[in-house]
């Protein structure tokens, strides 16, 4: 159980650092908007890192898992709605922002399931 927790926490730390690095590189390369896109992904990772830390306060392993997966479903629902509204209005800028958040959340979910499942007793 402890291994799974450490793996997931390391995943968040590493990914957040990577997004910061990519953002800096894009900015230095004269691609300020793309730097912002990396920052958006980084913010989503930071958000779910906090959610994950909160999930660990649940009573047992099943509750922790349920808490995390529920949040990984519910929080992106708002982004999905915003994406659909942006699509109806042909707002390519907003569509991209929302799709990055949705995609980052999806990657977090897949990673969480993989690590949580791998070290399951």
């Amino acid at each position: 159980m402890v291994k799974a927790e450490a793996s997931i926490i390391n995943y968040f730390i590493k990914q957040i650092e990577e997004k910061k690095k990519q953002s800096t590189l894009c900015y230095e390369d004269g691609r300020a908007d793309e730097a912002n896109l990396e920052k958006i992904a980084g913010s989503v990772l930071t958000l779910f890192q906090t959610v994950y830390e909160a999930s660990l306060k649940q009573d047992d392993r099943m509750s922790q898992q349920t808490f995390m997966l529920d949040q990984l479903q519910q929080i992106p629902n708002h982004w999905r709605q915003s994406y659909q509204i942006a699509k109806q209005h042909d707002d390519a800028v907003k569509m991209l922002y929302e799709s990055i958040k949705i995609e980052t959340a999806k990657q977090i979910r897949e990673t969480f399931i993989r690590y949580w499942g791998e070290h399951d007793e």
Partner: protein
Amino acid sequence: MMNERETVQLFKCLADKTRLQILRSLANEDMDVERLAQRLNVTPPTISFHLKKLADAGAVSSYKEQYYTFYSLHREIFMKNILDFIQIQSDEADLQAQRDHDYREKIIASFFEYGKLKSLPTQRKKKRIVLEEIVKSFKVNQIYTEREVNIMLADYHDDFCTLRRDMVEAGLLKRDQEGYQRPCKYEKEN
């Protein structure tokens, strides 16, 4: 000819490597999003994002051909001498008008989303700008019943009663026994 604000917007838009690469590609031929994405090794949504910014700045335009949307460069803008851009004059009255316009646009962008009001500002000056924007949908000197006013205002915000009351208080809508009217005194479209 572009004004100073449009010039700044264009130059800000050009100060991006990916957008310059897009323009370089379009300088050779018109292209669609997929082709640009493949050529520049960037995802299609990111290309669409940049094209929107370029279109808003007047650098590119789009047209449909069969099932595809193609983008083309506005060559006439890029044929200009940079000296022409930097010599655009602004007198103080123009600058003040421009600042006022920019402030209004900023307020409208903060409080409206896709034509709907996100919330009504509490600050009087900002509220006035928002109400003036909404009143544009009413024809000057046409009489509207309260029901018609409510229906029109409900398109902007669920609390149409507050909106209606505030617009009457601000003098943007006049109310008498016949109904509601937008007086011509506030006919301000820009």
